[in-house]
């Protein structure tokens, strides 16, 4: 397993790099800059950093006003508050205007841990994915988070990038980051496991467990949930009997839904979704929570086995 790194650390450093080369970059935070690591940028560029206090709605609409005047605005807070709290501002004032606002939210998903349900965003990808113009990226590790931030900087228009709270192990193998493109991390047969975020690592672990039984599923990393790489899903669907989709998110509206929609539209295949099943989170360690909510490699393996046995 690769090195353990905070993706949000890498985000903070990447912002500083971008701030050095582009004066248009302005960074906003809502009293969480030490957690989101926008504090790194604040230290280097105090004139271009604005702490808006605990007022996310104002922050999002302020970001829109800055973007309307030619700024490239990075906005950070926790996923819960960036999406649910300020949804109307993000929808009507950032996305509808197609403004250059990059929402990089940290503390997404169950692995927020001990803070519990109020701070564990499990619907954020669904919210953001349903908004026109919005691009959505859920990086699997820190290097991918950096690529996602750079892609959001390069491309005009709004982005939502979801990072976690905990350190993540860097993938040992990867393909060049291309916005809107997934890639096959491990080729295989019969079943394809599709994952994003920290679940990519679990998918690889599941494949390892299954290979002892002679089962070798594909593992596919889809970092960009939107625009969604339907072509890759169809290409793989031609070679497999079914899909298992894994995400640290509700099974409603996120990556699982994206894959289900693509398959239903283009080439139907049976599908199992690994994710949080219409429930809120709770306090606990990240490891305990992933286990309790069925988001571990053994849950993925079980889903693969059940698909292999499944008859129409």
């Amino acid at each position, binding site marked *: 397993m690769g090195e353990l790194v905070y993706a949000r650390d890498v985000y903070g450093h990447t912002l500083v790099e971008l701030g050095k080369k582009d004066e248009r970059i302005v960074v906003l935070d809502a009293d969480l800059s030490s957690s989101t690591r926008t504090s790194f940028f604040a230290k280097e560029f105090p004139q271009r950093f604005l702490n808006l206090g605990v007022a996310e709605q104002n922050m999002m609409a*302020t970001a829109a006003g800055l973007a309307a005047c030619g700024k490239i605005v990075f906005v950070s807070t926790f996923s819960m508050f960036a999406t649910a709290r300020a949804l109307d501002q993000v929808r009507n004032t950032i996305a509808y205007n*197609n403004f250059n606002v990059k929402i990089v939210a940290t503390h997404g998903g169950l692995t927020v841990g001990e803070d519990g349900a109020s701070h564990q965003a499990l619907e954020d990808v669904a919210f953001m994915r349903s908004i026109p113009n919005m691009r959505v990226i859920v990086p699997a590790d820190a290097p991918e988070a950096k690529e996602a931030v750079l892609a959001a900087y390069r491309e005009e228009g709004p982005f939502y990038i979801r990072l976690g709270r905990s350190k993540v192990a860097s993938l040992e193998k990867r393909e060049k980051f291309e916005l809107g493109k997934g890639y096959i991390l491990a080729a295989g047969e019969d079943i394809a496991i599709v994952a994003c975020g920290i679940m990519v690592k679990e998918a690889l672990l599941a494949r390892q467990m299954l290979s002892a039984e002679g089962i070798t599923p594909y593992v596919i990393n889809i970092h960009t949930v939107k625009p969604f790489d339907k072509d890759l899903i169809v290409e793989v669907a031609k070679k497999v009997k079914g899909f298992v989709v894994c995400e640290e998110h509700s099974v409603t509206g996120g990556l699982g839904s994206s894959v289900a929609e693509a398959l239903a539209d283009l080439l139907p295949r049976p599908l199992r979704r690994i994710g949080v099943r219409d429930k809120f989170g709770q306090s606990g360690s990240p490891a305990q929570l992933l286990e309790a909510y069925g988001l571990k490699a053994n849950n993925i393996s079980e889903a693969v086995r059940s698909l292999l046995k499944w008859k129409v």
Partner: protein
Amino acid sequence: MNKEKNDKVKMLADKCQQMRRLIVKMIAEAGSGHPGGSLSCVEIMACLYFAVLNHRPHQPYWSQRDRFHLSKGHACPCWYAALSLSGYFEEKELWTLRKFGSLLQGHPDRRTPGVDVASGSLGQGLSVSIGMSLAAKIDQEERKVYCLLGDGELEEGNVWEAAMAAAHFKLDNLCAIVDYNRFQIDGSVEKIMNIEPLGDKWKAFGWKVREVDGHNIEELLEAFGSFKTTKGKPTVIIAHTIKGKGVSFMENVVDFHGRAPTKAETEKALKELGED
């Protein structure tokens, strides 16, 4: 009053009459829209577009332009009238208001020349304007930012987040105007959700507060002038207005918040507004 000032006030009063006729006609033609709150802010908008704003209608995206944002987006017929009379687009576009494919959407949209940011969902415009003010401050440019808010809109919590932030950042390049026409869709603001004491609220948030008769052009011009010389804090102009101003049977009538006049009402209204 000196002659130059007198001529300016007369010119603006004339623009107001023209704008009112255009508003009534375009909403009648559209068959829906918000006449009450469009007619109440006519003097405010006329002063801005024909006397206060530093802008170039034939160069809508000129980078040094002052910014205007209509937070009470439903009053866009008034904005469209001002933009068209300024020369941002031809008058004939007004007759396509709210129709499929129109440059003029039911609420402001960036496809309209002169509209920098869409609005319609209330309570967000002051925050947008703060972003524009901060951009000017960061760039060390003299651009001013004007934001027109409704009174009912002040019931949105986002407005007060913004009020706090604008004073915190000492945005003296930001001028908010409240079109205080005292009515919202369901009835009088006082009865639905009282916003008084309004001046005290803004003062407590750290703003310079001016209260004016929102139909008195001289008072409005004076207030805008005082905004430009205020340093260290944002300005709010609380403009006391009459909903539906200028059309006798629309004045202070809640029903005209959000419905178009009938054919007969349109004719009567235009006659009152001096249409030949």
